[in-house]
């Protein structure tokens, strides 16, 4: 039951906000996946979307504008037993936080990033975000947006994310299935959620969404062999530059090692004993460290 996943905090989003759909889909996905709530952590950024960390009955870390990914990365690397999801807006993750967005893809840390993409900075009254189309003028803009938009899926692909999907906030069932697939994926994932903002974005409305998106039906997102990846990436570029934005799982690349596997490759001890699981004292004193073996390089 998704209700079990509701916290006691009242979601203070505007009536009709796309965030409600994302919240419902997340709670349904967690419920259906049978996630252990103590080992699940929502890490969020700043803005309307960031508040989601408070609304789910699981641990929530509501961080800084643009910085959810570093916090999430630290949590996941220090304790890989935790399942970590990032929620942030398009301004948060692709504007102020874009460097971290790219870095997470390069590392392929097992963290799923959910971008609440509404094209605007809602909480500060609707300024243009990095995903707002060029020439568009949402209602609080003084003049039309003169910057080109960034495509989160293509950016994520080039950064090395191994799971890419796009959903729509008002199609909760579909979004739930994307979240489940993303949470089951091993490695860094991105779900771009097209999220109408009824208060500030009067351009990318539900009507606009239904005219400008299509649900993927025949598309195969799977890449199981390294040599197939480049061809799949070419196909994704064509798909993304098509006349409508595709909704569904776009890439599921199973060929890359996760960051945890990469660290374990350098240091086998990490796999069995990551930072949060290590004992660091012995009866209130430091561990019985052998100086010669540990710090021998400095001994004279």
């Amino acid at each position, binding site marked *: 039951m998704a209700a079990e996943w509701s916290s006691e905090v009242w979601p203070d989003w505007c009536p009709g906000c796309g965030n409600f759909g994302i919240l419902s889909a997340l709670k349904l996905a967690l419920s259906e996946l049978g996630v252990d709530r103590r080992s699940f952590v929502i890490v969020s950024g700043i803005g309307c979307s960031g508040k989601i960390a408070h609304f789910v009955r699981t641990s929530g870390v509501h961080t800084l504008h643009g*910085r959810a990914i570093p916090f999430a990365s630290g949590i996941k690397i220090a304790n890989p037993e935790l399942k970590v999801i990032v929620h942030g807006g398009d301004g948060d993750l692709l504007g102020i936080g874009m460097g971290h967005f790219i870095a997470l893809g390069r590392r392929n840390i097992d963290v799923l990033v959910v971008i609440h993409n509404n094209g605007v900075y809602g909480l500060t009254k609707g300024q243009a975000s990095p995903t707002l189309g060029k020439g568009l003028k949402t209602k609080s803009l003084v003049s039309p947006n003169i910057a080109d938009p960034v495509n989160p899926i293509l950016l994520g692909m080039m950064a090395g994310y191994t799971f890419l999907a796009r959903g729509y906030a008002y199609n909760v069932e579909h979004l739930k299935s994307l979240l489940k697939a993303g949470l089951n994926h091993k490695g860094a994932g991105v779900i771009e959620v097209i999220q109408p903002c009824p208060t500030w974005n009067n351009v990318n409305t539900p009507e606009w969404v239904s005219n400008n998106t299509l649900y993927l039906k025949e598309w195969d997102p799977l890449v199981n062999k390294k040599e197939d990846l480049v061809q799949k990436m070419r196909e994704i570029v064509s798909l993304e530059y098509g006349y409508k934005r595709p909704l569904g799982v776009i890439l599921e690349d199973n060929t890359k090692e996760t960051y945890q596997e990469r660290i374990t490759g350098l240091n086998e001890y990490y796999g069995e004993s990551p930072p949060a699981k290590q004992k*660091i004292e012995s009866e209130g004193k430091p561990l019985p460290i052998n100086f010669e073996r540990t710090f021998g390089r400095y001994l004279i």
Partner: protein
Amino acid sequence: MDFNIIIGGPQGGGVETAGMLLIRAVASTGLEVLGVREYHSNIKGKHSYFHVRVADRAVSSIKLPADILGGLDPETLATHFSEVREGGVVVYDEAIEGKPLTKSPSMDPAKVSRLRSTLAERRINDSIEGLRNYLEKEGVRVYSLPFSKMISDILKGTSIPIERTMNTAITSAILSIMGFEKGIVYGAIDTLFAGKAGVLEVNRKVVDTVYEKLSVEKVRVVKKDERLEAGGKRGRRLLLAGAEAVAVGKIIGGLRFQTYYPITPAADESLAIEEIARVFDDDGRVIGTPIIVQTEDEISAIGMAIGGALTGARSATSTSGPGFSLMVEGFGWAGINEVPVVVTYYQRGGPSTGLPTRHSQSDLLFSIFAGHGEFSRIVIASGDHQEAMEDAIKCFNYAEIFQVPVIHLLDKGLANSVTALPVPPLDTAIDRGEVVDGTEEYKRFEFTESGISPRAFLGRSIQWYTGDEHNERGNISEDPLVREEMYRKRLEKRERILKEIPDEDKAKFYGSDAYEDLILTWGTTKGAAFDALPALNALGRNVALLQVRLMEPFPADYVCKFIAKARRVVSIEANYNGQLAWLISHYCRREVDNTVLKYNGRSISEDEVISAYRRVIEGEGRIVLTGGE
């Protein structure tokens, strides 16, 4: 016995190895040593040097004039010749004899123009030969030896260029002049070039040749019996740079997760931790492994470290001024969320890029005040390698006991200086503060009598954190009463910290209780003040030293008591404004009588403190030190 040696050359031209060879050799005999490294922000070509002080008693600063100067290039001789004492020694390769002093393209135009005036003033011809004539006239012993010729014979048939072994040649000459047996140099070379058989063999031959040549010259500076007496007293020691001492301390203290973005001079510490990589027990079992992550920027470094701390791993990040500037927002998040994260902060010359490789103590007030809003933090400044190692452990304890972010405030002077420390006894407490396994009803920010909310790690219970003001559960609240109570909870920790941190971590007093004058200092400047103390007392005043260690919360009760007893208070620090003096005037309601300041990017030396103190006695209020190259 107290020796000061300068060995310099072009950056990337073997100066680092020369210095380490010298330091390793003298330290292996049991002598005390401190090597201070000066270098440009440059990979190859600019002037770089090691100032190595060797003594039979502990030394924590350098001292001029130098007894010996070894030059790998003309610029070194041109830069440092005036720093050599009468009766001192200058060593260089005869092959540079004909070169001019002022023509090295690597020289800063300002330095060239200063040098031209000096040469004109002292009637020195613009050549190494001219300098030699001058120095010999001034009573300096100049050893212009045919090193290149000697080396080129050895290098025949190898692909090693002469410059690559010039450092060994000149360092061997210095060590020979100081009276060290050849075996001692071998020992240092064997360690430095371990695993490089060919290079090792060539370097050994260079040592042989130099020793043979100098035995003909029959030069001895150090008496043999002095050296052996000093050597007999030492057990096994650690030879390390300050940044490495911190790395060792952190690992002993249970560091398991460290993040960093490359920056001078902090990056050395993270590299050292990554190299150490595994903690072993006596049976050779791995009992710990710190994980290092090189992040995309410092904003990520602090964010990741905070994330690690939330999971219960002892977590830290290490940086310098520009990096900490970027971390400030995250640092505030740790403040409002009471996260025990440690920031190891190596100060360097600012603002902006400033002097990236040079010493400074100008970020004291920044580290105390950094961040918008008000929150509790701890700032601890270590004064030497030993303290830096121990404080690295204590910083984690204090962070976890009081649940506040902690800044371990260090400086470039410490980071890059090399010394030998006794192996630490592993008896510093590890105190993780109050840790619980939360339930579903767990309140991360619960109001308690002690003012500290028991901490559950992520994964042990559901919990919320937010950079917004929050209630006991950690959910956003803008309620005025919640705000007031939560705000007070965070700020009142200050009192508890001041009550519980022991006096020796607040400040250290050196000298006689019956002092008339009190010197106040902090950070590595303590070294020069401490070393100068006997000489200052010989100037006719009873002078004591107070090194402040806990910079925030400022231990006013403890420090001001010492101030109140003093007839004269003199502060010594490496900045322009007198930042410690400012804190004293704020907290103790007393203006410091004299400030001794230095902001040219070079560490304060013992002799500078002594000469500054003469000026203090003569009544000069503000004294700016200008020494160092």
